[in-house]
């Protein structure tokens, strides 16, 4: 059963107010050549009705997957979801016309005009409705132009117009400003704000902190398919204060003066770091008043990554438990390795055998050399002794070795 549980309002006591979207333990994994990847892991999401709610997170955080699960474009492995109080995806006609979505390519025909494309949209029922949607998105003037001549921002607005055709209570938008220039992005953000102002709940995804801060009333921060923080945007994201890092000739005095001026200052080596600065110029002004001049200065705004780190120190998901097939493969591999040494082991053993062989040969050579040296020494001593004592030694002949002695014996015997 793909959806073994159902969202129960009692699980969300804070959901006394109207809720547009709620999920409970939503989980989605994708199978790949390197095993299963967890896209969404036990997601408990609560999107209040009205206003803009942003799913914020870095790439691969599972934002788009959540939207696709909510829209029925993908099926969850586990968990439950409700859209406008209707359980997904076993939905009948209850949601028809109540949910508009912009996920992926809307599939417009470039040769046709914007109006014609909207007229052929499944949700379009008449020309007035289409014209209203075009006016709402600011495309009334471009309605008679071919979609192929639209800018990316206009295409996005046309897609939003298509999503608005049925007058939805909930608008789901995936990364609305992706690929847009700043002007286009600003227009789309303004449009989304206007749509939300008319009472439609907007659920959108974004990976831009600034966009979420500007646009969203409430936000859910995702990382690794999990919720790492949610709540009002002002509480979760904060005011996106800037940290200023600067170098001053007299760092200690600069720290003291800035502290006196009410800044949060800390030393970082030679540099002075001022946290939570709303206006970086205020720091330099405060220093200049005290005749302290900045030699080097850089500003850094809080990034999404640092926000995720702040909210969840370890946002990385735990690796998925190996599937039965993977466990079986691991067992077989272990058995195979135990039964037959790998080529690496065989190579190592061969190497060790060669080393042992060489060591033995070396030891034999050393032993032979030592023996030869000992024999030579013995021969030399044998010659020296007759020269010192007996007649044989007087003429300097060395002391005979056992072998030579034996030879002598042989000659005597002969």
């Amino acid at each position, binding site marked *: 059963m793909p959806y073994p549980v159902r969202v129960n309002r009692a699980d969300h006591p804070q959901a006394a107010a109207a809720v547009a979207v709620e999920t409970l333990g939503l989980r989605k994994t994708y199978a790949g050549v390197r095993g299963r990847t967890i896209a969404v892991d036990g997601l408990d999401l609560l999107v209040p009705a009205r206003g803009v709610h942003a799913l914020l997170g870095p790439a691969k955080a599972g934002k788009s997957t959540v939207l*696709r699960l909510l*829209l*029925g*474009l*993908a*099926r969850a492995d586990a968990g439950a979801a409700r859209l406008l109080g209707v359980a*997904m*995806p076993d*939905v*009948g*006609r209850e*949601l*028809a*016309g109540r*949910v*508009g*979505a912009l*996920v*992926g*390519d*809307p*599939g*417009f*025909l470039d*040769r*046709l005009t914007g109006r014609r494309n909207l007229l*052929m*949209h*499944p*949700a*379009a*029922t008449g020309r007035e409705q289409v014209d209203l949607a075009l006016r709402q998105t600011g495309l009334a003037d471009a309605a008679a132009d071919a979609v192929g001549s639209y800018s990316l921002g206009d295409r996005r607005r046309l897609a939003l117009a*298509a*999503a608005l055709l*049925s007058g939805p209570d909930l608008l789901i938008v995936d990364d609305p400003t992706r690929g847009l220039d700043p002007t286009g992005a600003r227009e789309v953000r303004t449009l989304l704000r206007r749509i939300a102002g008319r009472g439609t709940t907007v659920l959108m995804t974004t990976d831009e902190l600034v966009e979420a801060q500007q646009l969203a009333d409430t936000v859910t921060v995702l990382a690794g398919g999990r919720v790492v923080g949610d709540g009002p945007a002002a509480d979760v994201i904060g005011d996106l204060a800037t940290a200023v890092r600067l170098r001053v000739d007299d760092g200690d005095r600069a720290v003291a003066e800035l502290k006196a001026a009410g800044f949060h200052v800390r030393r970082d080596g030679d540099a002075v770091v001022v946290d939570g600065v709303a206006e970086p110029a205020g720091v330099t002004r405060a220093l200049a008043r005290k005749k302290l001049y900045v030699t080097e200065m850089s500003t850094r705004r809080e990034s999404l990554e640092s926000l995720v780190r702040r909210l969840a120190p370890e946002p990385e998901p735990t690796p998925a438990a190996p599937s039965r097939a993977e466990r079986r493969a691991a067992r077989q591999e272990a058995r195979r390795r135990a039964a037959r040494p790998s080529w690496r082991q065989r190579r190592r053993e061969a190497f060790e055998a060669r080393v042992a062989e060489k060591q033995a040969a070396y030891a034999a050579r050393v032993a032979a050399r030592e023996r030869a040296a000992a024999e030579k020494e013995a021969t030399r001593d044998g010659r020296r002794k007759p020269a010192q004592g007996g007649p044989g030694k007087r003429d300097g002949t060395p002391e005979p070795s056992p072998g030579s002695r034996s030879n002598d014996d042989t000659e005597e015997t002969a």
Partner: protein
Amino acid sequence: MRLVAKELQRFAVRPAARWVAAGMLVYVVTVVVLAAFTSDGGGLARTVTDGELAGYALVPVLFACVAGALLAAGPNGGTRALLTVEPRRDRVYRLRAVAAALAVLPGVAAAYLLLASGLWGVALVAGPADDPGTTTDAAGLLPALAWSGARVLVLAGCAAVAGAAVGAAVGRWWAAVSVVPVALLGLEVILAGLAAERWSPLAHARAWVAGPAASDAGTSVGPWWLSGLFLLGAVAVVTTVGLLAFRRRELR
């Protein structure tokens, strides 16, 4: 009905529909031109009676199958938009199947009429002066043509539904368009290898469109109505498999 009409509108303006129509037109013109050069002066009536005309119409039926696949899976298909409006997949699937069956009818009908009129013209020009097939037998010819055309249209509708099922199951238009002819030809080759031509969909399609006259003359696959039932069953199987696949498939 409103959604079916929208689907038909969308398909009509898509480039894929024009390519399919152009393909059919090229085929019809080729057949007529070849008939003009190789005509034995048999006349249109004999062509209809022998099932030769209906045999020619099998290629537009294959085009209909490809058109169905393109309608369900082609670029600018908009399945996602449909699902967003109405998340029930079964409903979207049925909608696509019905739209595919209806969408191919005008094109196949036009191709059939062009074929018939072209062959009639060839017989008129190149046939013998006292050609009984094109002049004296006009009363019997038109009903025969109409019945043959109706059978071709029914087969085209079924082929389009099967093509839409394949398209919905596969999801990629290029894969669906490749799968349809390759699967048909592969099946033919396998059945020929097994000496089981009586199970061949193409043989049954030929028997169905040829109709009772050719069936009375004796075919390898039995009566024409049995071939119709066989084809209906095959389409039902393909459609069911496509529905099951479409239910499970994830949409990008």
